[in-house]
């Protein structure tokens, strides 16, 4: 994949992640997301870990995806953008790792919609490191 196309993919993945994170921030918990007591958005999103410093955790995700998408679409000097996206992807992967740890170990429940957002972040990082030169 050409870098130009890879940046477009990163931008679109970032936009999808932004939409999902904003949905998780403002919309009610959808019923389909609560399947068992372990697979439950409700348990995760109403847990004490659903907020960090009084701000919904999903809003941090939204900010990460917004910055990713903006950087990928920004028509500026390529090298600076690529450097930013690579560093930002590492930060995103660390964040995803921390959130998965919180879900599995501290809350003992998994939120399906959050997992989709984590997958999008991983896809952003994978596209960045595999195709952006």
């Amino acid at each position, binding site marked *: 994949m050409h870098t130009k196309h890879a940046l477009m993919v990163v931008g679109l993945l970032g936009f999808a992640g932004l939409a999902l994170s904003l949905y998780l921030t403002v919309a009610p*918990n959808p019923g389909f997301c609560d399947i068992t*007591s372990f697979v439950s958005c409700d348990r995760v999103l109403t847990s*004490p870990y659903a907020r960090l410093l009084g701000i919904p955790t999903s*809003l941090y995700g*939204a900010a990460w995806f917004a*910055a990713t998408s903006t950087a990928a679409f920004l*028509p500026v000097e390529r090298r600076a953008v690529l450097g930013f996206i690579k560093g930002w992807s590492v930060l995103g992967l660390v964040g995803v790792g921390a959130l998965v740890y919180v879900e599995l170990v501290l809350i003992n429940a998994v939120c399906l919609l959050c997992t989709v957002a984590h997958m999008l972040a991983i896809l952003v990082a994978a596209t960045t490191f595999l195709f952006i030169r």
Partner: protein
Amino acid sequence: MPKKRKRFSGTHLALIPVALLAVIIIYLTVAPPPDLTTKTGVQTVEQGGLAPPFTLNKIDGNGLRSERFEFSPASGRVVFMDFLHEWCPHCGNMAPIIERLYSNYGGRVVFISVAGGYQTSPEKTADFIRKHNIRWTVVYDPQLEVFNKYGVRGTPTYFIIGPDGRVLAKLEGEQPYERLAQELERALS
């Protein structure tokens, strides 16, 4: 000479995500959603503390009633209080267990359910009451004021309150029947 139309550039596209984020942040600042988590600065009850009194409207299978229910914690009887939301699947899972608990302890323990009004309506809550055949007192907390007073972070949450009004147990999430029965036995002994 025809006017040159401005083209939608990459800069415009790049600005959409940050603009969207900014709009949502402004919206959340201006109209923050009701919070299920414990608010800072609000005195909440913990095990061993005194349960706060409250007054709320009753609700049953027919809907919200005008009748007010006044809860006085030091009633001289053990109280089992259940905080729930009609949309919460764990509350639905627990309904048969609470019903069994009521069948076995209803004569010796006062049962009260506090149904929250977050992302729901009295009508939907009345459906839940009908569906699960809840026979004890249910009150409706539209603004989650009692939820916040009791420090309820999620549903279901159960409180067992002693005859002197002290909180003997606070249990969060789904619980096996045996655990709840054990706590009630302890409170009654």
